[in-house]
């Protein structure tokens, strides 16, 4: 990353331009891929460092808020949007962990349920584990062989710390003599800019 020590440069707009330009001196967006070769009865396994293919098609948001990639877009993702959901899974159809996706706890939970919905509906037949038989989606039996769809309103996620619908937490904070932030992400945003300096 480019590091500058002059404080006056670090207004919000300057940080924005840095992010949109993607200036990097180090090789930050690179991905490993394990390659297996066989030469003269020898098996060579090596990890090749490659530039990731996603860099050119990444979405650039206008604001530089500290929010997870799904919350930042504020999209209504459904289980039929397979082009979006296929980004969050491995080749065997398994959901990627949170340290890789970088999502918040709620949206990780939500998207993992959406992925399982899409698998049950048979919308991602390419992404199946290696041990499964070919055309396994066409060989379904009994009630599984007919078309099913899902309603996204049935997804239930436990309330997070900041989700305060009944106002109980706000009352409790006032009794303790503390301030309750209704929009905590705004505070986080400012903190993120300061820490970069």
């Amino acid at each position, binding site marked *: 990353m480019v590091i500058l020590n002059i404080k006056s440069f670090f207004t919000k707009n300057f940080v924005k331009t840095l992010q949109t330009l993607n200036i990097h001196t180090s090789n*930050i*967006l*690179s*991905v*490993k*891929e*394990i390659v297996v070769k066989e030469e003269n009865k020898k098996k060579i396994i090596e*990890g090749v460092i490659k530039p*990731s*293919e*996603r*860099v050119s*098609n*990444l*979405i650039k948001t206008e604001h530089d808020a500290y929010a997870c*990639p*799904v919350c930042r*877009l504020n999209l209504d993702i459904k289980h*039929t949007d*397979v*082009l*979006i959901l*296929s*980004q969050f899974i*491995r*080749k*065997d159809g398994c959901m990627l962990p949170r*340290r*890789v*996706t*970088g*999502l918040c706890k709620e949206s990780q939970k939500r998207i993992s349920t959406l992925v399982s919905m899409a698998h049950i*509906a*048979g*919308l*991602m*037949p*390419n*992404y199946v584990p290696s041990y499964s038989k070919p055309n396994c989606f066409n060989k379904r039996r*009994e*009630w*599984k*062989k*007919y*078309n*099913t*769809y*899902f*309603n996204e309103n*049935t997804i239930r996620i436990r309330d997070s710390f900041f989700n305060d619908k009944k106002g109980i937490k706000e009352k409790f904070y006032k009794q303790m003599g503390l301030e309750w932030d209704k929009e905590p992400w705004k505070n986080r945003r400012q903190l993120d800019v300061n820490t970069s300096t």
Partner: protein
Amino acid sequence: MSAWARTKQWNTFTRIWHLFDATWQNPIDCAETIGLYLKGMYKPIYHPMSDCGDHVVVINTKKIAFPGQDWRWRAYYHHTGYAKGASYTRAWELHDKDPTLIFKKAVYSKLGNNLQRRYTMQRLHLFADEKVPEDIMKNITNQIRPIKIVPRTLDTYSQEEIKSFPKIFDYPKDYIIR
């Protein structure tokens, strides 16, 4: 009655034939709109005493969809009339026997309990596949819009389409692709 007024009346009271494709549609949601067309309630001249209903031809009833676990848990009741004659069949078992029966029952229940119900049901033509007899197919002049969007599977997209689609996040630095 002049010739102009006569032709106007012929046109208003002719029965129109509609086509409806039932792939990935919920039959219970569809039954409400199909019932309007069968009774002719979308017409401005509608009156329950006037016989102005239309024909509806439904194709691909084998490919209907249900939400969640409804194929497993939705039961259809039948009673023979004799003692201990009650029977419950699951939706998927009924669909195995006759792939048009679930759609027929859904429309029948939505029409309402009238003396006219049996006659309006005669104007509904159900087919499990796309194969429709020619004498029915040549009458069709209109298509009813599907209620639910038919989802597209991932293997129907090309590799270029998947690669060029905008990505939400990038892999971390030392991630190993599997």
